[in-house]
């Protein structure tokens, strides 16, 4: 309600400021003022709305406290039970009834508190609304008083836009910080139980020993997990996804008819949205047995019914669209004149693609590949179902391996003990993975900066 009033106030401010600006602009000339009338309008509207809305946001957080305090001091609240939980239940119920969220009380005592709640809520919301309205008015008036021919409204409005954009990109930083903070904190506890060197360089990952409390000695060697992650996610899956994705993108942008591309591109994108359980079943029940039989017939030892190959191949299919769509967009965005220049030299289409388009589209291509790798590293379901959970350090693609994230999910969602080294190991794994992917990204950034051929 009050929000609508504030918006209305802002709109009024917009109209008045605009009218005023139009008037003085007519006097001094159109290009003589720094800003357009509507930009003056926006300036006033922002000053009207932003402080008031910010206040409301703060108020919304403070108000419940105030309401509760006032209800608790009411006479009806004196008879509340001392026990915290039932008291809160009654209070909550009364509050819910007062707000109309609930029709009747399960607890008779709640009814006596409904009125105090209603009163207090009404009182405080009215106060909040009034304050917000005053703030809106004051902000608007202040802004309006500044509107004048030499006033740089546009710059200020645009600065707000820029701050909004900056704020948006800071969310990523905050998220990263949150992740890092929580990972580091829990990892520290883990490393106080397990020697970091054993963790980083140990060759034996034996979660059951840890899970079942046989002791932590050399149960947390993470090397097999990292190898498994690289083997499945960064090697096998990429061997499938990069050529297929990139070649699909190239074919669709450069060879296929536009209508074909229009249909095929979204089709391929569906591959990214098929739930991973589906891929998991497919990998575990169709691909893996076939691969095992294949390995058995050609006499590869150690072939098992779960294999890195099965998981990696299917995962590769799943992430094709990450490569194909992003590469497709960047290749399509290279100006036609670049293609013309190459074709006119007598280059074939494929030469044009390889030597001119791909280098120019490099950021998009690399971006797509990175996204694909990231997705592959993070995938768990396919690995659990098709590659198993056995942490083997092996080069044999027909053998069973496991990955970091799969183990993390197992450790975090299974039948876990409180804060055992086993649960905390998940955080340590996450931290190391985070650092590794960070390095990977830094390298990728460098590569792109170095080899990108920026067109005009």
């Amino acid at each position: 309600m009050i929000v609508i009033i504030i918006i209305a106030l802002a709109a009024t401010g917009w109209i008045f400021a605009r009218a005023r600006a139009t008037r003085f602009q007519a006097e001094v000339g159109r290009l003589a003022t720094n800003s357009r009338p509507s930009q003056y309008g926006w300036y006033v509207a922002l000053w009207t709305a932003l402080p008031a809305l910010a206040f409301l946001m703060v108020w919304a957080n403070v108000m419940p406290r105030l309401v509760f305090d006032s209800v608790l001091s009411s006479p009806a609240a004196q008879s509340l039970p001392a026990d915290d939980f039932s008291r809160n239940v009654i209070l909550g119920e009364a509050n819910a009834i007062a707000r109309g969220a609930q029709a009747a009380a399960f607890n008779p005592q709640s009814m006596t508190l409904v009125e105090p709640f209603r009163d207090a809520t009404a009182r405080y919301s009215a106060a909040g609304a009034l304050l917000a309205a005053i703030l809106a008015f004051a902000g608007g008036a202040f802004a309006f008083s500044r509107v004048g021919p030499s006033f740089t409204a546009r710059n200020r409005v645009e600065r707000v836009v820029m701050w909004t954009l900056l704020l948006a990109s800071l969310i990523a930083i905050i998220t990263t910080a949150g992740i890092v903070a929580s990972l580091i904190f829990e990892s520290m506890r883990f490393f106080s139980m397990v020697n970091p060197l054993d963790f980083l360089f140990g060759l034996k990952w034996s979660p059951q020993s840890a899970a079942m409390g046989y002791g932590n000695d050399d149960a947390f060697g993470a090397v097999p997990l990292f190898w498994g992650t690289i083997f499945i996610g960064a090697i096998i899956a990429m061997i499938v996804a990069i050529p297929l994705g990139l070649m699909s993108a190239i074919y669709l942008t450069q060879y296929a008819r536009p209508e074909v591309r229009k249909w095929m591109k979204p089709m391929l994108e569906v591959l990214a949205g098929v739930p991973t359980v589906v891929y998991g079943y497919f990998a575990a029940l169709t691909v893996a047995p076939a691969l095992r039989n294949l390995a058995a017939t050609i006499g590869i030892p150690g072939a098992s019914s779960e294999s890195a190959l099965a998981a990696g191949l299917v995962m590769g299919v799943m992430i094709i669209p990450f490569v194909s769509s992003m590469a497709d967009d960047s290749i399509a965005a290279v100006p036609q004149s670049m293609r013309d220049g190459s074709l006119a030299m007598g280059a074939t289409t494929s030469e044009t693609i390889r030597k001119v388009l791909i280098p120019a589209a490099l950021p998009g291509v690399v971006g797509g590949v990175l996204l694909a790798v990231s997705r592959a590293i993070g995938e768990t379901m396919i690995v659990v179902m098709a590659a198993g959970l056995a942490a083997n350090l092996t080069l044999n693609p027909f053998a069973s391996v496991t990955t970091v994230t799969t183990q993390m999910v197992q450790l975090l969602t299974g039948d876990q003990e409180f804060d055992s080294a086993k649960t905390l190991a998940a955080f340590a794994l996450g931290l190391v993975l985070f650092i590794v992917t960070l390095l990977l990204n830094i390298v990728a950034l460098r590569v792109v900066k170095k080899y990108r051929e920026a067109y005009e």
Partner: protein
Amino acid sequence: QGQPGSGAARDQIRAVGSSTVYPFAQEAVGLFTQTNPGMKAPIIESTGTGAGMKLFCAGVGSQYPDIENASRRMKKSEFDQCQANGVKEIIEVQIGVDGIAFAESNKGPGYSLTPKLVYEALAANPYGKGPNKAKTWKDVDPSLPSVAISVFGPPSTSGTRDSLAELVLTVGCDSDPAMKALKDSDEARHKQLCTQIREDGAYVDAGENDNLIVQKLAANPDAVGVFGFSYLDANRDKLNDIPLDGVEATYDAVASGAYPGARPLYIYVKKAHIAAVPGLKAYVEAFSRNWNPGGPLTRRGMVAAQENVRQANADVVTNLTVMTGDDLK
């Protein structure tokens, strides 16, 4: 502790915990809503027993779950945690029994096993005599077929795995008197020798998805699968059960406890919530009223507990008897 009463008052029951109990809790929800049409259906979250315990024991209040489903008994450490967080009064109800079943494809060789054989085939270090070298079942016992040992089972993080260790492996292990003796002298060592499973590929962690194990068995006729009894029952046309100690994994054998791989299932309820959360008592009663043999819960695959156990627990439900935690391990 959150703000008092912030958010809506809870009008929905919330349960967390075991994936094994999950289907039966679901069934109870159906029964509960049928008899209480005005009530919102309870929310059952399948988190695994341990993770559920953590949530359950975090405190008393509307943001904490009311019920914990458990495929094993609460541990002493968990109980203490609960107490420390103010979850003082906990009602423990055994709702039934689940069996871990051993099965093979109906095209399989027709195994017949004992806990001892299972232990010898799967232990990482049988009887502490060095790493397990058995490659085929025949290596374990000449009467068994000469096919490679390949067992699909639950991962080390699941409650089902705990049961496997406790109900089968330890039993097999203790058949050796030396091991039994070891239990008294060095319990940790005993536990390790008796429950640690080999990691050389003979035993395959197949994730928490029992259906997947069923399907993998169909694709690998020589393999042995370990999973919840209800899955065996639902797939009798594809699978044969493997007798343990000569006892077939039938409903009656599990119910009577004759089948070695039977384990009790529990729910834990916060007494403090019973008054505050509408319908909570009725929901718990939905279990006790329907856990008889032939009742809806057993139709869903649960195995009914023995008569006396059922009676004792029904009394717990009616009287809301609080557990003491004295006999927990």
